[in-house]
Structures are given as C-alpha cells and as structure tokens.
C-alpha cells in the first residue's frame, strides 16, 4: 500500500516537472496598430499585432485573435479572426469597417501557453464603411420603383374617385332639393 502511494507521488511529480503547460509562461509583450490599408477598393483597416518575447525579440508561430467592439447586442467583442505571427512576430489582418466612427480593436494572444501577454488595444476612426447586410434583390428590381409608383398612383386615383362620388351625392342631393323648393316657391308666387 505504502509502495503504491509512493510510486504515484513520484510519477505525479515527474509528470508535473516534464509538462511545459504546467510551467509558468514567460512574460511577453503584445502591441496592436490599426491604420488605413493602402490599395484596397473598399474602405479597409490594416490591423497589425506584434509579439515580443521576454528578451525583446519577435516571437513567431503564436496565434493572435483580433476583435472589434460592436455597439450591437450590448457592446460585445466580435471576433474578426485568428492569425499566426510570422518570423518577425507580426500577425496581420485586413478588416472592412461595417460602420463609421471610432472602432475599438483588441488583439489577444492565444499562443501555445509558453508565453503570456496582456491584450493590446487600438482605436481607429472610420470615415467610410461597408454595410454588413445587403438588401436582397427586390421583386421587379429591373423596373425599379416605377411599377410600385404606378400602382400607388392608381390607388390614389381610386380614392379620388370614391371621394368624388361621395361629395357629388352629399352636396348634390340637398342642392337639388333646395332648387326644386325655390322653383316651386317662385311658381307659387307667380301663380
């Protein structure tokens, strides 16, 4: 019994020492930069995250996830994608802004656990944006709103016709009664 417990303790200690995940990660440094991308047809932001190791040298092959803060859904962080760092320690992502105004970006180091770095933030003032949602092709879109306006004109014409009929009756009947009364009165006087 004692031998089994001793064996388990030794094995556990060896596993703990041999596992890099359980070792304290080294402190790295993550920075984020957001600038307007050049040569793009649509308004685009170039996001560049740079990861440095404890010795200040760039670290490659570490995953960086980019986020943008959305005003929708109570201001959640929307993931834009994950990019590995290159040999220069840089992870780059092109993003087309979905709305104008100040955009708050964040980069998180996911990595492999050997390195830890606090998230980096950057803000960008987007003057132009590409809407996320595109309208589905409208029915009869080739004719644009010509058909709808024509039908609307027809509806207005029907309303005018209804009003004309009603006004003609409401004004005409009492007028005819008055005219008949007046003419019979004249006939009575002249008679």
């Amino acid at each position, binding site marked *: 019994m004692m031998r089994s417990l001793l064996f388990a303790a030794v094995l556990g200690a060896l596993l703990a020492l041999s596992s890099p995940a359980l070792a304290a990660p080294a402190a790295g440094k993550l920075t984020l930069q957001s600038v307007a991308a050049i040569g793009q047809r649509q308004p685009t932001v170039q996001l560049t995250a740079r990861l440095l190791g404890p010795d200040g040298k760039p670290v490659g092959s570490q995953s960086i996830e980019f986020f943008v803060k959305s005003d929708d859904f109570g201001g959640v962080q929307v993931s834009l994608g994950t990019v590995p760092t290159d040999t220069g320690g840089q992870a780059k992502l092109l993003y087309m802004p979905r709305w104008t105004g100040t955009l708050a970006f964040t980069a998180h180091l996911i990595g492999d656990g050997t390195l830890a770095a606090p998230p980096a933030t950057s803000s960008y003032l987007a003057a132009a944006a590409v809407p996320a949602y595109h309208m589905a092709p*409208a*029915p*009869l879109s080739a004719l644009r*709103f010509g058909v*709808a*306006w024509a*039908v*609307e004109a027809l*509806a207005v014409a*029907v*309303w005018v*016709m*209804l009003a004309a*009929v*009603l006004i*003609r*009756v*409401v004004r*005409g*009947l*009492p007028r*005819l*009664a*008055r005219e*008949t009364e007046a003419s019979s009165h004249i006939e009575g006087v002249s008679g």
Partner: protein
Amino acid sequence: MRKRTSRTELDETALRPVTSSGRGFWLVMLPLGLLVLAALFAWGWQIWQGLGSAGYNDQAFWSIYESNLVTFIGVAYGGAVVSAILRLTRTAWRAPITRLAEATALFSLLVGMMFALVHLGRPERIWELVTRPRLSSPIFWDFVAVTTYLVATVIFLYLPLIPDLAALAGRLPAGSRLVAWYRRLSLDWRALPAQRRLLDGAMAVMAVAIIPMAVSVHSVLAWAFALSGRPGWDSSIFAPYFVVAALYSGVALVILVVAGFRQGYRLHAYIGEDHLIHLAYLMVVLDATYLYFTFADLLGEGFSMNNSVVPVMGQLLTGQYAPSFWIWAVGGGLLPLLLVALPWTRRTWGIVTAAALVVAGMWLKRIVIVLPAAAQPMIAGGWGSFHFTWVSITISVGAAAAIPLLMMGFFRMFPVLSVTEIEELAEEPVVRPRAHAAFGLPQEGDEE
C-alpha cells in the same frame, strides 16, 4: 309564390327591428356578445403571453389567423360582388337581399381586418405600415387595398340607404333620437327625379368600381403568399384561385345571412325560397369553378414532381393534412354541389346545409393552404406543427360571432330591407327567364 304586400306591411316589416326588439333579439345578442367578450379577453391574454399562447412557433409562423383573415375578407368580397352584379344586371329579385349582402360585406370585412392586428405580436406597430411603408411588399399593398375596399363598401352600403332613411325619418315618432340622424344622413332626399338620377348614377359607378376593387383585394392577399417563393404557395394561379374562393364562400355566407334574417325577422313575405335557390345556383357555379382550380393547381404542381413541392403535396394529399383536405373536398366541394343539384334537396334546408358546409369547408381549405407550406422545413429538421389552443379558438369563434352581432346591431338602427327599392321593382313588370321553369323554380301563380 310570395303574396304581394302593401306599403304599410313593408314598412312595418322593415321597421320592426328598429322600433322594437323582442326577447328573441336579446336572447341571440347576449350569447354572441359573450363570445365576442371572451375573444377580446383571449386577445388580451395573447398580447400579454405572446403568440406562442395561440399555438404559433418558429416552424408554424402563419396559421389560423391568416386562414381567418383570408376567410373573413373573402366572404366580405362575396357579399359586395353579389350585390354589385345583381345591381348591374338589374336582376329583378335582388331588392330584398342586396342590403343584407352589403351589410355582410361590411361587417365581415371589419372582422377580417382585425385578424391582421391579432396576428401581430406587437399590434401597436401596425402604424409602421403608414410611417415606414415598403412599396415592394405585398403586405403594404394588402393594407392599401383592404382600406380602400372598406371605404368603398361603406359608401356602397350607404348610398341605397339614403331614400329609406328619408322615408323612415317621416314614419318614426318625432321624439325618437334616430330621427335627427336619419334626416341628416338622408341628405334632404325628396325622391325628386333629378335626385333619383344623381343617386342611381352614383350607385352605378360604385357597383362597377367595387368589383375590380374586390378582385384587387383578394389578388393582393393571394400574392402575399405566392410572392414568398415558398413551395406550396408559389403558384401562378393563386390570385384567381383566391378570388374564386372568396366569391364561393361569400355567396355561401350571404345565403346563411339571408336565410337567418328571413327566419329571425320574419321576412318570408319578401324573401322566398326562390331567392335562396337563385343564390344557390350562383354558389354551385363557383363551387365547380373552385374545384376545377384546385385540380389545376394540384395537377400542375404534382405532375412536375418538383423536389421542393413533393413533400408539401405528400403532406396535403396523404400525410398529416390529408384528413382536413379530403373533408373539405367532400364536405365543402362535392356535397354542396349535390345538395343543390338534386331537386329533392334543393329546398331551404338543403341550401342552408350546403351553404354551411361551404363556409366551414372553405375555412378548413384555407387552413390546409396556409399550414403545410408554412410548416415544411426549408433548411433542415422536421416538420413544424401548429396546435390549436384555447386562445386561438376563442378568438376565432368570437370573431365569427361578431359578424351577426354587428349586423343585428346595425339593423337595430337601419332598415333590414331596401324598402324603396322593393317598391320600385314591384312596379316594374317581372320577366322570368325560361330557365326558371326548366329548373323547376316557382312560377307565377304557384303556391309556395
């Protein structure tokens, strides 16, 4: 043959509901009123609890309320068009039934329009149809067409009332509070030839105009389904299919209303069995047309075996909706045809039974038009299902009760018969078509 009655008898019959309401009137009004109150309570409950309390869910997003909307607006269409066609063709037997048909049109339209609100989880947002209209949406055009049709129906009911209101103003006791209203609404009517010409002209314009208006209402209603592109609804004949369905069920409801008021208000001297038989002939012509349209619609979709339509067809003809479909086909399509075609059932009881089968059957038909296409899975997963709940049933029954309730309330203030028109037509020589004898209809001199 109905006996000829004097003007005094005619006035008395038409005015009886206005001047006095018997115990029978309140015995009918009370349960109808309670049903309507129960429906209002259920609607309030639905607004409080959400549309789920009416049996709706993500996979059955259109169901009973859309069926009710199409049914009630459909019967409204039938009432108005029957009256318009009878007026335009100057049909001699129209006079005692046109007012009932026009009132049926107005009140079933009002009730039908309510279902657009009931279907909305947030009914206060109906104003966004006005403030934020989307011109390419059939729902917006539905709103435009139905409101236009409502105004036209009110005018169409009002114009023939004018001479009767003037006549009634002179016959009611001077102290009656209705007299002042009658005088105001009768527009100083004195039955002058010039006034008659003006009113006849306006009524002719309205009778012509209301037919395309009614066609537009039901066509737009059909396009709200057909333009969705959903298998089962995406049919090129949906607009005329809906129009014929509306006429068919509308004529059936007019028969029920005419028979009901004939019995309840003792109008046998003016509305005979021959009126019901004439209307029944109209109904079976529309019945045959509707059956043909149904066949054409199913053949086109079924023969092509389009993959997206096959599941809907299967559910409709042999699946979970098959009992409803075949009950309609037999009860709402074939049986009414037989009841009117066979001479020994072509009596008041047979015609009323046929009309009741048509009204109920056509409601069921609207359910099987709406539900299978809505409940089919478009992306993945199983078929959706709609379960009737006390909320949706109470609202539907209350709405059906609201039509006779409103009509009886209306005829508590306005004459149920078009008195002036009956008199005018009684003075004209009656020309009976040869077909009248050929089909065994009552002839001049026959005893009823």
